């Protein structure tokens, strides 16, 4: 079976710094791949290339057997790759429907924004993630962390992504909201969606990830099946940058 995504020897330099250095990894259907490593290990740079924010300097990204080169985030989205950035990338002055459909607005036959329909559709998706979410018209700025996360996830889900990138989705959340995100990940996985998950919490990693790719200084230390290692093994890999014996 062809994997959903294959990253082959991808590198990215910023000036003299090898932010990402010949990285290989794969993601299959219904699989959650944890991307682990210290800050500055190259995880965010790697996923930005997958998300189409900037192209790799070397190597290729193969999506469902087809080598792809994304000139911008829109092309990555068109290829079925949705990204939930660590910053969530929400326009905080706009309301939830505007953010869910940002860049992909639903239009009326007169080419104007179909705000009623966008509001209705956004409510449907968000209600599945967070049933307590009612007021669709307040700006994102006025929402709690969990509600913002729900908006960001809804934006990725509405367009039937097959590949999802989540950059530290639980970093700023409380326990109940973290639970909501982990449940969502499990549900998406059951639906055959492949997920790249950047995460620092080992408990979360062991709860939802199938495999984990550990990075240090831009390069891959190793990729392991989570079931085969202990939390200590993974932590040792992250800290020392050496494979477990």
């Amino acid at each position, binding site marked *: 079976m062809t994997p959903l995504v294959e990253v082959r020897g991808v590198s990215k330099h910023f000036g003299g710094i090898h932010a990402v250095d010949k990285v290989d990894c794969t993601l299959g259907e219904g699989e959650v791949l944890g991307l682990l490593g210290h800050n500055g290990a190259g995880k965010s740079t790697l996923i930005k290339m997958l998300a189409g924010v900037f192209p790799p300097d070397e190597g290729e990204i193969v999506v469902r057997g087809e080598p792809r080169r994304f000139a911008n985030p829109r092309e990555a989205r068109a290829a079925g790759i949705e990204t939930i950035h660590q910053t969530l*990338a929400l326009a905080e*002055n*706009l309301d939830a429907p505007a953010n869910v459909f940002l860049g992909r607005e639903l239009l009326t036959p007169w080419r104007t924004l179909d705000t*009623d329909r966008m509001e209705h559709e956004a409510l449907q998706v968000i209600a599945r993630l967070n049933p307590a979410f009612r007021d669709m018209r307040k700006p994102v700025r006025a929402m709690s962390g969990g509600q913002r996360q729900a908006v960001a996830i809804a934006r990725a889900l509405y367009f039937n992504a097959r590949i999802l990138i989540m950059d530290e989705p639980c970093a700023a959340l409380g326990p109940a909201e973290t639970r909501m995100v982990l449940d969502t990940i499990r549900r998406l996985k059951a639906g055959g969606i492949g997920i790249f998950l950047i995460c620092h919490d080992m408990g979360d990693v062991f709860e939802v990830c199938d495999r984990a790719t550990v990075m240090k200084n831009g390069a891959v230390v190793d990729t392991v099946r989570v079931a085969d290692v202990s939390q200590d093994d993974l932590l040792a890999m992250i800290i020392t940058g050496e494979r477990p014996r």
Partner: protein
Amino acid sequence: MQVTRFTSLVGALALIWIALAFATDGIFLTPRNLYNLSIQTCVTAIMACGMVYVIAARQIDLSVGSQMAFTGMLIAFAQVQWLGAETPFAWLASIAIGVLAGLALGAFQGWWVAYRAVPAFVVTLAGYLMFRGAAFLVADGQTVAPLSTTYARLGGGVGGSIGPWWSWALGLAACAWVVAQLAYERRSRARYNAAVAPLWADVLRTAITCAALLGFVAVVCAYPDPAAEGGAAQGKGIGAPVLILVAIAVALGVVARRTRFGRYVFAYGGNPEAAVLSGLPTRRVLLGVFMLMGALAAVAAVITTARLDSGTHSIGQMAELYVIAATVIGGTSLAGGTGTIAGAIAGALLIQTLDNGMVLMDVSSAKRQIFIGLILIGAVWFDGIYTRRQAR
């Protein structure tokens, strides 16, 4: 949030009007003065509508006054020297030339900002100099006059208003629209479980709006048209510049709320990084914002040159300050992402009210400049307090 801010602005305006009425022995509130005030406000307000977009997108345009001067000169020169002032439709063709020139100036500035990443402050400061110089070059510093008589009516002077009958018809239509809007808004909010304001508050707001609209019509109709022939002097009615302003304001209000372009402007201003990550065509949006501003500067130039019945390269001096002040007073935050067309128009009315009132009180132009400058600082200071309070 925007509503409360707008309400406080209208309240401030009402207080200033009352104060000016006393300070000028009622001259301020005469129909003649209020008609003139409505015309004076239009030039600033039309450009302020565009400045809402510019500032909401975290940009600034310091060159609007110079853009006015250049496009105004070009319009006058094209009309008089190339086409002949009284050639049929020459006035329309010259306006088209002016608006195209405005779009070109905007495209020039927008290109440097969006595609070459030069800060808007620098680009438009350069534009401020360059376009003023270009305006001088059009007719080698000379004044071009007289303009087409049809064109001159656009300035709201002689024959530049629509008379009482049409004014009342328009005023009533506008009231009907405001009421319909209220009903639609309430129904839509109730349907989607959004918070609905109490009925009395909405009714009060609508009643005040309608009273203001009809009051305005009554005032401009009470101003006898000096040009009217015969004994029974007819009221002037709504001036042509006001109609142009209303058309632009309605159109830009719809664009802001109902089109992708408008939404992207506000999304970019709210969070530029998110706009890029969401794949928005941010460069094209910025380019469009500056082009819109250029076109509106050309429209403002049309009204100004029509009022003067001539084109001179000195028009629009300090217009950028009045326009930016009006926009900021109207609730458009310099931090980007917020702002309303209605607020900008109210802000323009406030600035022009102060200007007009001080002229009536015989305040020298030097002192007026000092005062308007202080108002600008005050408005930004207030914006800062308001934004911080909201962020908490």
